[in-house]
């Protein structure tokens, strides 16, 4: 715990964090970019999950729909991580101690586990796409994976907004 505290303090005192905190324009710009990319992550993930659940784009087979949308998700997610890390660095200690931030991070971990379980264990065993390229939501487990993903992303966005209302800003 002490190492974590030291690490967070080092982050807080880093040049990057100081620059973001001291520059009036830098934080809003990065935050705006973060919101833009988060909206693309959330939206594209929702489309992928809704397609698998059979609630959107039914005339396109699941695999090709996902192949079209997922690159958008990954690029947006990569950019979200970069901007999110910079925002976190600017106020590391306060973010770390914020309950909404903690819940957001737990949700992101859950999303990662859910995705890995689906891709590397469930999909390999069942591969529902081969037999039913247009309709795979009849497999209950697939539905569960998608619902977990949707709910977790929903919470991530809600927590993200609530952080803004509860974070105590530390000026350097």
């Amino acid at each position: 715990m002490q190492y974590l505290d030291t690490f967070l303090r080092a982050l807080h005192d880093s040049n990057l964090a100081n620059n973001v905190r001291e520059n009036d324009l830098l934080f809003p710009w990065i935050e705006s970019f973060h919101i833009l990319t988060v909206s693309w992550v959330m939206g594209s993930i929702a489309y992928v999950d809704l397609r698998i659940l059979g609630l959107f784009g039914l005339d396109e087979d699941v695999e090709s729909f996902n192949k079209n949308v997922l690159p958008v998700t990954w690029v947006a997610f990569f950019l979200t991580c970069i901007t999110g890390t910079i925002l976190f660095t600017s106020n590391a200690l306060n973010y770390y101690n914020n309950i909404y931030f903690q819940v957001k991070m737990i949700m992101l971990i859950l999303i990662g586990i859910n995705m890995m379980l689906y891709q590397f264990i469930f999909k390999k065993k069942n591969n529902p796409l081969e037999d039913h390229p247009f309709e795979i939501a009849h497999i209950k487990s697939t539905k569960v994976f998608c619902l977990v993903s949707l709910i977790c992303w929903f919470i991530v966005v809600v927590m993200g907004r609530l952080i803004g209302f509860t974070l105590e800003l530390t000026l350097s």
Partner: protein
Amino acid sequence: MFVQVLCLIFNDLFMNNAQLLNFCTWLEDTDLSQAIQVNDWIVPLVQIIHIFAVCAVGTSLLLVGLKIFDRFMVKKSLSHTIVRFQAVITPALAILLLTGSVLIIGEPSRSLANWVFQLKMILLLIATTIFFWIKKISIVQNGKYSSTPLPITFNHKLLAALLLINLVLIIFAGRWIAYT
């Protein structure tokens, strides 16, 4: 410096309007506005709904833009893609209008009298016009329900580029309202 000059120009153009400020003061004193101001949970809740609608519209417009640049659903026609995403965009825009109105009523001076908000509204009008313009020319080109893709013209790509730039600016402006 450039940003400051831009701010001053917009202030002169829009913000220093006595009638608008009077309207904000009147709106702020209404029962509805007072109710929104007094209940701490209303603004965060409405903002969260607003953000989800932004996610829906933002992603849909991005995917339509990518379709025009041949990076998404290359085997489908443009009109087919637009009709599909419009089913999400239209209700999401209605939600944005509704939640946005609640936020404006709750804090009229922060929004209506803010030049970034005014710029956002202008950009929103431009983006909506461009979207429906793209839809119109794509439907004229290959019918509403034809799924056979036709070559995308330079005009389509130009409009798509403008639409995507607008989208980014609208989301940025949405955030910057809080800082100006």
